[in-house]
């Protein structure tokens, strides 16, 4: 007698289906023994007692399905396993209540779409690495939206991907645009000749939408996950992405966006950039300017500048002028009057972490800046929920999102904070980012306008003037339609700027008044 079997990892069949499979096997003839059970340690012990345990089953987890067959010959066992696979596929199809086949596994999905070369994985962290391995081993690139994956696992995944000519974007990669298709939190942008590599989700969204709004377009926008540029990971995905864009015939200009990479990683990036015969603009937010000079990048200092530079390079120029000239910002700021003497401080409430960082790098000259994610000269807030003097808050941080949706989806926590800041007589300006696109709140106006109006009413009641400055990240082709959102915010009395950089500068000018 021969024992053979298979493990179905990460495929979930209801109990009725499993019983049907078991019955099918039993009908295949006398002398055949089988078990179709979940791979718990205890079931494996029983399989062992029954003489049906295979060494490969040791790798099984509690939610893996084990199918063990004892048959007279190897050939018979193989035939039975083949029939089981067919039956499981049939059962998957029958499970659908809709007309289209809804695959429940990567293997099933590949049968429907054999030409797929990317797997987007969004499952709980403890299962995500396994799914990523499955994808890589099937020759797919991976976008890992999931987080809570150990660094060691990330490194192994990326090393394997690198060796096999694949990319792993992530973990915690929330944004990418591949062949014009927005993935996860991403925007609908023009196709074009600018390729982006970003270790920053909101950063990627800001630059791609600004580029698109300028009339240029995106060839590919690749996210790497925030840890990729650290020393341990070594920038594997960042560098491979950069190389890929260097070789891509549709990419004429490359834009790099991240926080400062580890010096060793930066050196590697710089070396590769030097070898690519295309203009490369780079924003390493908060990096030392002198360090960057040794490389051939066109260096930008904020996201808007990076986007403007990339657009300019795509047009054969070299211009990084801001979208809103400084004079115009000063004029706008000068119109904000009627402040009470005690109004002094900026309260910036961000849903995008990169915007929180960018604001701090722009406001480097401002005194008494506090943040829950401090950069540069900023001090750490004692209590993220309570502002101190000039406060710049990343409301996507853990202390705000435990058990709640991200603030890009659910505005309620930030809305409460807007009103809280309005009640503080020392608040002079409130600064907000509104990020549009897939994955984000589909009806931002209905959620953010009421607290904006309330904030203004509170200020007015107390003989104060309270400007609320917003940036809106998105395009008119996004589901929310950027122009509609801008118009709605302006009607509510907000000052709306085309970028976070412009909004931050305006806020700073108002504070200086």
């Amino acid at each position, binding site marked *: 007698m021969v024992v053979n079997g298979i493990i179905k990892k990460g495929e*979930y069949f209801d109990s009725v289906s499993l*019983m049907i499979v078991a019955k099918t096997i039993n009908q295949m003839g006398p002398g055949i023994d089988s078990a179709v059970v979940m791979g718990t340690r205890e*079931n494996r012990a029983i399989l062992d007692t*029954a003489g049906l345990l295979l060494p490969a089953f040791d790798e099984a987890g509690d939610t893996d399905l084990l199918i063990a067959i004892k048959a007279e010959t190897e050939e018979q066992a193989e035939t039975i396993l083949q029939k089981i696979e067919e039956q499981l596929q049939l059962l998957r199809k029958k499970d659908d209540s809709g007309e289209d086949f809804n695959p429940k596994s990567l293997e099933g999905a590949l049968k429907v779409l054999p030409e797929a070369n990317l797997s987007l994985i969004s*499952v*709980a*962290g403890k299962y995500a690495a396994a799914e990523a391995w499955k994808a890589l081993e099937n020759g797919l690139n991976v976008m890992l939206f999931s987080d809570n994956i150990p660094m060691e696992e990330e490194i192994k995944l990326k090393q394997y991907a690198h060796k096999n000519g694949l990319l792993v974007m992530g973990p915690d990669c929330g944004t990418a645009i591949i062949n014009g298709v927005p993935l996860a939190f991403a925007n609908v942008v023009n196709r074009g000749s600018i390729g982006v590599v970003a270790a920053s989700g909101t950063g990627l969204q800001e630059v791609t939408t600004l580029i698109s709004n300028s009339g240029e377009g995106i060839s590919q926008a690749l996210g790497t996950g925030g840890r990729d540029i650290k020393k341990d990971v070594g920038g594997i995905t960042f560098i491979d992405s950069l190389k890929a864009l260097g070789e891509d015939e549709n990419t004429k200009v490359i834009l790099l966006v991240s926080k400062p990479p580890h010096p060793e990683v930066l050196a590697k990036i710089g070396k590769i950039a030097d070898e690519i015969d295309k203009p490369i603009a780079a924003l390493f937010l908060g990096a030392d300017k002198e360090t960057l000079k040794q490389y051939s990048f066109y260096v930008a200092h904020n996201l808007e500048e990076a986007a403007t530079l990339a657009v300019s390079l795509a047009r054969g120029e070299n211009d990084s002028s801001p979208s809103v000239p400084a004079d115009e910002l000063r004029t706008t700021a000068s119109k904000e009057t009627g402040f009470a003497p005690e109004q002094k401080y900026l309260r910036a409430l961000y849903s995008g972490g990169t915007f929180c960082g960018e604001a701090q790098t722009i406001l480097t000259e401002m005194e008494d800046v506090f943040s829950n994610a401090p950069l540069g000269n900023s001090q750490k807030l004692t209590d993220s929920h309570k502002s101190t003097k000039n406060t710049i808050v990343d409301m996507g941080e853990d202390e705000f999102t435990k058990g*709640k*949706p991200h603030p890009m*989806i659910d505005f309620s926590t930030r809305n409460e904070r807007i009103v809280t800041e309005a009640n503080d007589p020392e608040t002079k300006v409130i600064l907000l980012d509104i990020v549009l696109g897939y994955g984000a709140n589909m009806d931002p106006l209905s959620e953010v306008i009421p607290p904006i109006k309330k904030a203004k009413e509170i200020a007015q009641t107390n003989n104060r003037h309270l400007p609320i400055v917003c940036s809106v990240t998105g395009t008119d082709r996004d589901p929310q339609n950027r122009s509609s959102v801008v118009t709605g915010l302006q009607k509510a009395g907000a000052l709306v700027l085309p970028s976070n950089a412009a909004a931050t500068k305006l806020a700073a000018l108002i504070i200086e008044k």
Partner: protein
Amino acid sequence: MTEWISYGDRLECGEYREHSRFNKAVNFISPNGTPVSLVTEPIGAGPQNIVILNGNLLSYRALAISEHKIQWDSGDVCRFSDFQQGVYTSHFSHHLPQTINRDIFFENLDSLSEILRETAPDKSLTFLLPRAPKPKWEGAFEQSFAQNAVDAAAHLMTGKFTEGVKKLKGTGFGLTPGGDDFIAGLMVGLHVTQTLCNFSCYCSAHLPVTVEEIFQIAESDNFFSNRFLLYARDGHLFQHFNHLLTALFTAQSSDNAIKAVTQKLYDVGETSGADMCAGFIFCMNLFEQ
């Protein structure tokens, strides 16, 4: 058009992505492992279930739950106030009558046992109950599993709860192994025993084990089993089981009500409902004295 029927009282705010999909249910999970299930009416309400009617489960692949509403990736937004039956109160204590009559309960428990013996699916753990027919076990695994279950039952009957639970956990057929379902039933039995104890001045300290102790032993990495076990530990039950408890405490000398509810329980998985019932009855039989 989707009709929103009820939502469980243990829903937690957060973002959820699809975990697994079945004919009548889609499971979602948050980044920190909290589950939510979108189910159709045959499955019924549960502590973390959202029940719909006429909806296409394929339309829903992700959701975000906030204080007042649920936002789906499909674009659907349903406010909690939109649900026809509102919140489902899952703790079993809310489904018991104000006045507990032990005689009625144990009489109905006998009826339930009889019903299970006659109608429970093949290969469920009902065979561990007294006078239950023994299934025809096919193959080495089934025979080993059955013997293991008998050994476990022997431990339980002699008061060695931890040994019995250790032997049962993770064993058996189905997406949620039958042993786990049986253990969930044991835990519900302990809750009900506690309730009966409180009403008869019997000192609950005489119980040889707590639900927490059982859960600690039975907890596993099987996402599906663990949910049932966790709910059972805390006394938060699915609708069909709560209805069963209500029937057990209130049905009058007729096994039709109990039979009807038991039939609905059989709709849960292949043997899960029956296994959980079996565990519950087994526990109640132990403490009936």
